[in-house]
């Protein structure tokens, strides 16, 4: 168990580091796939099977595919990596410091807290989750679907552009 945990953790961490450091975007996207798979494994480990499958299906299956698509579509605009396109080092150092500080703050906040070492028996049943989604959580659920519609309409509107040629400013 612990071994599996450590393995998955290492996988997630390594993938995440690649995502943010690799210069080649295509490879970064593939690293994101590694992270997502690792997180799905962690979900499994935490006895949330349904979520694990959703994670793989939607994230890896849909979102990542979409991202890769976009990368390929805009590939001609990327320019050759490593020429003028590298970020200012000041921002990189500052970003690293800020991220580290944030990590320290978060860890400092959560680590000293008392956590239940023995989890309650039995995982959350899928049926209960479904039940909750259509009863108590019906409002957020519906709102999410509204967001979906809005996102789709918006995406079409943005990406299709105005009907008559050049867009204003």
């Amino acid at each position, binding site marked *: 168990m612990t071994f599996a945990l450590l393995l998955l953790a290492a996988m997630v961490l390594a993938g995440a580091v690649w995502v943010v450091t690799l210069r080649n975007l295509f490879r970064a996207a593939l690293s994101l796939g590694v992270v997502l798979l690792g997180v799905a494994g962690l979900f499994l480990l935490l006895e949330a099977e349904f979520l694990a499958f959703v994670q793989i299906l939607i994230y890896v299956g849909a979102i990542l595919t979409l991202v890769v698509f976009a990368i390929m579509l805009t590939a001609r605009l990327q320019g050759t990596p490593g020429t003028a396109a590298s970020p200012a080092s000041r*921002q990189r150092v*500052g970003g690293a410091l*800020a*991220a580290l500080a*944030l990590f320290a*703050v978060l860890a400092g*906040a959560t680590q000293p807290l008392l956590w239940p070492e023995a989890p309650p028996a039995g995982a959350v049943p899928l049926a209960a989750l479904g039940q909750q989604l259509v009863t108590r959580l019906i409002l957020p659920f519906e709102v999410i679907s509204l967001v979906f519609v809005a996102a789709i309409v918006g995406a079409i509107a943005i990406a299709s552009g105005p009907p008559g040629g050049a867009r204003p400013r």
Partner: protein
Amino acid sequence: MTPALLWIPLLPLAAFALLITCGRRLAPPVAGWVAVAALAASAGATLALAEPVLRGQRLAVRWAWLSAGDPRWALGLAVDGLSWLMLAVVTGVGTMIACYSIGYMRGDPRYPRFFAYLALFCASMLGLVLADHFLLLYACWELVGLCSYLLISFWFEKPAAAAAGRKAFITTRIGDAGLLAGILWLAWAGGTLQFDALAGLRETLSHGLLTAISLLIFLGAVGKSAQVPLHVWLPDAMEGPTPVSALIHAATMVAAGIYLVARTLPLFTPESLQVVLAVGLLTHLAAGTVALTMTDIKRVLAYSTISQLGLMMTALGLGAAALAMFHLTTHACFKALLFLGAGSVIHATHEQELGRLGGLRRAMPWTAAVFLIAAVSMSGVFPLSGFWSKDAILLAAQHDGPPWLLGALLAGAVMTTAYVFRLYLRCFHGAPAPHAGHESPLIMVLPMAVLALGAAAVGLAGSPWLAHPLLHLLGLTQIHAGIDVPILLWSTLAAAAGLWLAWSVGVRRARPLPAALRPLGTRLYTWAANKYYVDEWYQRLIIGPYLAAARGLSRFDLRVIDGAVDGAGLAGRALAVWKERFDRLVVDRLVNGTASAVRLAGAGLRWVQTGIVHQYLLVVVVAVVVVSLVLK
């Protein structure tokens, strides 16, 4: 009886409301008649009150104003002998002046508005006189100031008129601030602001406190009644239409200060009365000398008013409120008359410079006659009104004042006669001036005739012949019984001396001084003719520094306080200055400095607002970390 009390100020107020809202739809004379009718009705209501007041009754109404429960803030109107006399003066003189204005203001494009202001002026003055509470008095006090502002700058296209109105308002407001401080102090220390409780405060408040409060109140009176050193607004107020001057000088504005002191006399301690006396006497004499040198008809009259008000203040300083009010009443009649006469002259000749006037007696017989009556009355010639009131003051000075006071007042009397007859003689006698002049219409002459009657006869109400009903009305009990012959002789002598001075020096241009003293005389004359340079000193000592302070603080605000944001700009300017020095471009360094300051400040701000998402985000993350660290 109570309703009549309310109607007195409300009727002119209603006339004001009517005229200001739909005055332009009324035909011009109608607007004037509305005001006259309202004032006359007020005068009628005042007369209706005469009977109970003469019996010594005190009528009052009262209503809650600033607080439902606290009786301190319940306002009220009340009428007693003192305020009844003022009511009579204001409504009587006011009606006459309004009547006269119907003719005088004919053809003015803002005719209805003039009468609206006039009605409001009288309404606020009536409210002031009727007020039974310091707060209501202060409110009407300020309204009176406002109306004087509106009326003095009525012909606001003339920059001088606009400036004069402002000067009047601000100068009197300095006094008002003192009055307000006195009221605040009284409210806090005495716990009451009602006039009928003032006498009781004499026992409860300490001597020093009373002195301080009474002096603050007196400061208000100094401003309103144009006493030294706040007298500067009154001569300038001549820029307004002449009926307005008449109203201000006779019935409404300046009388308010005298009335205030008379009303609050219970609060004055001997020390503060000394101050009142000193200020009054100084004003009386100084303004008299200035009046002797002025060459503008209205300015002579203005300084004569200041001088006469000084005389009233002197009487108040002697503690003789009744005598001051008596003189105020007679003064209201003859001074209104003098102004209306002067207005008649100006109306006919469009000229108010003495040097270009003369010999109008033939063209304007009525005006000349009433002017003469007023002048004689003012000179205190037996037995016209002015004699009785001035004599009473002289008598009081002899009895209650220091020995030199009588002499000083007699000197003032000489000056009074001198300047008023100098005015009369140079206007109406001598060689006719190029301005033909014609008699004024009936609507203007009639009010003058009525006032002339008053100027001649009103004083009898305070004379021993009729057993002093006026002074009894004012609550004076110990009155000198008969006519005091030495004083009568003295004052007649003073009038004669004044007349001789006016004739020989004012008209014949004789030189009374021996040659040795002539340079001194010339210098004194120059000083007086320049009003002792008071305006210039104020400009240098108060207005100039005030404006400089305003500008300085404004710069301070812009530079120093705002410097938190524009600090970069300041630093940039310093840098630019250094750079200029090196480059020896001395000429335009300021221009360049300012430019680069602006540019640098802009650059500084633009650096913060880059528009680049990354930098915004970095700030957000750092802020989150810092806040969470701080909160731990």
